[in-house]
Each structure stands twice: as structure tokens, then as C-alpha cells.
């Protein structure tokens, strides 16, 4: 049997996606600059009220990479589907897993850059209080970004146009934002919503960020949160792989 994945093919996809992003200055700027601008805006809004900024900072640090990567990935993948390049790729010896892993690696690399810049800004310049190790904030942010990418890959299969893909953002992402504990602590939600909140991956991303903020070392709760984020990302990638069919009608 042929191996389902080949590192050479995966890296070829990663290199190609990064090459495309490198040329697209506007998208790169949006990926790196927009989260920083929004975080700074938040800090400015609560002018001098450090306590409130500390409460909203960590959830937003989890949310921005998730939302932005969801959008970028779903539109990019849809473009690949509609331009015919996906069909061509599927006639080459490349495995489907190579394509997805290649995309995940490329967007993961961008996510590292995005997370490092955002964390340095919020903790270093804007003075958000963090008790735990700061690098863990960046790790969680990168995992959130990869989770966003994986979900974006998945939903792009159900969108026929880029217009539809963008509309999946409010449908898939906003409920997670509402129920992740940003507005109402998760334990104070009505019972049904609390259960819903428990199965939405973004809730764990926000929990993880709060955990790093309040605990001085890596806790078992943090391990669970990180495990759930990574696991949901893998499940979404596996489901996305199932939506890539070589033969279509």
C-alpha cells in the first residue's frame, strides 16, 4: 500500500501556501496587525481600568487567532476548490492528508508569528497581568489558530461560493464567542447553554488562557484544555479530509 502521507508532498504544499501569503501583503498585514490593533483598542477603552482589561484580554487573545484563521482558511480552501486546482491536485500522487497537513503547517507557521506578536504586545506593552509562563499563552494561541484553520477547512466543503464561506463565520464562530465565558462566566449560564458551552472548543481555549493568567505553573486543568483544543483540531482535520473526494459528480 502507498503511504497516505509523504513529507515531501506536505512540505511542497506548505512552501506553496507560504509563497502565496508572502506575496499577499494585505492579507499578511491583516493577520498580524489587526489583532494588535483590536487588543490595543480594548486596552484604550478601559483606560486605566487594569482589572477589566485583565478580564477581557485573555479571552480575546484566544479568540482573534481562532476567528481570523477560520476566515482565511475557509476562503483560501474554497478558492482552491473553485479554481480547479484542487481537482488537479487530486489527480497527482499526492495524498489528501498531505494537502491538509501542508495547509495546517503553513497556517500554523503564520499563527506562531501572529501569537508571538500579540502576546508580546498585550503582556509587554499593554501590561496584562499573567502569573503563569508567558510562552504558554503563545502555545495556546497557536493551537487556537490551528483549530480555527481546521474548522475553516471543514466548513469550506459546505460552501459553494466565497460569499457563503464568509457567512459561515457568524454561523460557526459567533455562538462559540457568545458561550465561551467572555460575557457571562460559563458556570453562570443556564443549564442547557452550559452543556452547549462544554462541547464548543473555543470555551476550552478561553479557559486555558484564564488558567495561564491565574496559575503560576502548568496545571492539570490546563492539560485538559490544551488536549481538548488539539483533539478538536485533529477531529476537524479528519472530517475535512473526508470531504475531499477524488471522484465527484
Amino acid at each position, binding site marked *: 500500500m*502507498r503511504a497516505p502521507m509523504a513529507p*515531501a*508532498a506536505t512540505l*511542497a504544499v506548505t*512552501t*506553496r501556501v507560504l*509563497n*502565496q501569503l508572502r*506575496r*499577499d501583503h494585505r492579507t499578511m498585514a491583516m493577520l498580524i496587525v489587526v489583532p494588535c490593533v483590536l487588543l490595543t483598542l480594548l486596552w484604550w477603552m478601559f483606560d486605566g481600568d487594569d482589572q477589566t482589561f485583565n478580564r477581557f484580554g485573555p479571552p480575546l487573545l484566544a479568540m482573534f487567532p481562532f476567528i481570523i484563521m477560520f476566515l482565511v482558511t475557509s476562503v483560501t480552501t474554497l478558492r482552491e476548490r473553485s*479554481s*480547479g*486546482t484542487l*481537482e*488537479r*491536485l*487530486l*489527480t*497527482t*500522487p*499526492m495524498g489528501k492528508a498531505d494537502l491538509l497537513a501542508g495547509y495546517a503547517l503553513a497556517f500554523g507557521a503564520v499563527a506562531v508569528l501572529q501569537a508571538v506578536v500579540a502576546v508580546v504586545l498585550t503582556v509587554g506593552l499593554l501590561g496584562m497581568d499573567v502569573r503563569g509562563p508567558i510562552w504558554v499563552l503563545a502555545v495556546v494561541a497557536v493551537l487556537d489558530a490551528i483549530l480555527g484553520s481546521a474548522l475553516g477547512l471543514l466548513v469550506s466543503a459546505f460552501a459553494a461560493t466565497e460569499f457563503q464561506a464568509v457567512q459561515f463565520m457568524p454561523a460557526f464562530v459567533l455562538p462559540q464567542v457568545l458561550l465561551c465565558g467572555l460575557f457571562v462566566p460559563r458556570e453562570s449560564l443556564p443549564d442547557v447553554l452550559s452543556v452547549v458551552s462544554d462541547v464548543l472548543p473555543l470555551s476550552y481555549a478561553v479557559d486555558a488562557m484564564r488558567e495561564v493568567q491565574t496559575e503560576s505553573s502548568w496545571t492539570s486543568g490546563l492539560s485538559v484544555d490544551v488536549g481538548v483544543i488539539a483533539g478538536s483540531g485533529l477531529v476537524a482535520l479528519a472530517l475535512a479530509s473526508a470531504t475531499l473526494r*477524488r*471522484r*465527484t*459528480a
Partner: protein
Amino acid sequence: MTNNSGVTPRSAHVVPRHRADHRADSEQESPVTRPSDAEAAVVVERLHVVRDGRTVLPELSFTVPRGQVTGLLGPSGGGKTTLMRALVGVQRVTSGQVRVLGLPAGTPALRSRVGYVTQSPSVYGDLTVAENLRFFARLLHAPFTDIEAVVGQVDLADHAGDLVQRLSGGQRSRVSLAVALLGRPELLVLDEPTVGLDPVLRRDLWELFHRLADEGTTLLVSSHVMDEATRCDRLLLLREGELVADDSPGVLLDRTGAMDVESAFLAVIDARTDRRAEVPA
């Protein structure tokens, strides 16, 4: 294996997967297979494709000989693209068999042996010509030395460093063709590769197709422009999913007494329509 009815049962042609060697296949199939089939690059038997409840290809059967340029001609919407997609294994097929280079179409082992060019250029607009080719060369396990060769073959050497989206439509479709030439595939399936090209480029590309055929490559080239038909070694005329002619251009013209392929095509269709009109009466 008996074949009294003249219809080959599907199971008779199912060859165990591990028999990838086509010579072994032809030996095993010799009782039911016409001798020419053993040599053919593509063998299509009773291919039936239904899309959205509409029959696009009704029980189509034909072969494509090796080392020749076979033209797939016919009006738009006649099933040319669907047929080509079935050959490269991306079309969902209702029934029937498609064997390519001795293997079932779409088999993983065929993916580096068959080059496919879609009708609209499927390359990345935001990469340069060379970057596109490097990417696909890595996926196809083709040596990087191929890149310079294929860029020259499609006459884009001066544009290797240009972004594809800055190129003209004709240039873009030649980039797409160059990708298909990587790794010297044994079968090239080209969906309207000469659309929108000027006459000089068209002539150059047809010369390239014949050079490749002389070196042993099999080419199946679709076109809805009838005057390209005379450049093919062999013609398949497809109309509403049905094969209305399967001949060399010379034979087709002789048989119909037409002056050009377009008239021959019309003559063949008229003759068929007349025959059909007589049947119910």
C-alpha cells in the same frame, strides 16, 4: 469465459488488482478482448454517466490507440469534459469500465503516468510560472530539470518569472499545459488546450503534440473547433454523449464525401437522424 451474446459481462473484465502489468492483463483477457485492445492506451466499455438525473454518457464504448493524437470533437455540452474526467478518475461513474494503460482509471499507480489539463487553467495565479511548475514537479516526483524543458515546449521561457495572473488567457492555459507535461506522462488528456490561442501558437502546439506522439506519448485532445480535426491522427466525434464517428480524418471525409470535417460531422448526424426516423415507421 463465454461471449455468445456479444455483450461482455462486467465480471469477465475485472482483473485482479495486483496484475498491474498490462501484458499479463492482455494474456488473460485475450479470449474476450479484440486484439487491438491489448495495444490501446484507453479502453472504455459501456461507460454510463448520469449527472443530476441527466444521462451525460449513455453506454459509451471506444478505444484510444497508443502513440497517436486522438481528437475528441463535438459541440459544447456533448460530454467531452465528462468523458475526460472519467479517464483521469475524478468523475463519478454510474456503470461501465474505463481502463487506462492497462489499469482501472483513477488507480493511484496511474496518477504519475497520466497528465490532465482542465478546460480552464488550473494553476495558481498568485505564483510565478516557475513556482507553479516547481510545486507540481515536487508532487509528481518529476525532476526539476523537466521544468526548463516544459517551459520551452509551451514557449513561455521569457515568462518563467512572471506571476500567472499577469499573463494573458492563452499564456495561462499554456502554463496549465506545461504542468501536465512534467514527468513525461505516458497519456496526456487535454481538454480544449488550444482555445483562445492565435494561429501561430496553435500550429506550434499541434506540432508539439505530434512530436510527443512520435516519442510514444498517447494524446487525447478535445476541441469544439472543427478545423483542428485534420491535425489529429484519429477522430472521435461526440454528440449528446454518443459517439457518432470513430475514424481517421481521411476515412471520415472519404466515407461522407464531405469537403471538410465540419460538413462530414453534419453528414454523419443527418444520416443517423434519418435512420432513427425510419425505425419506428
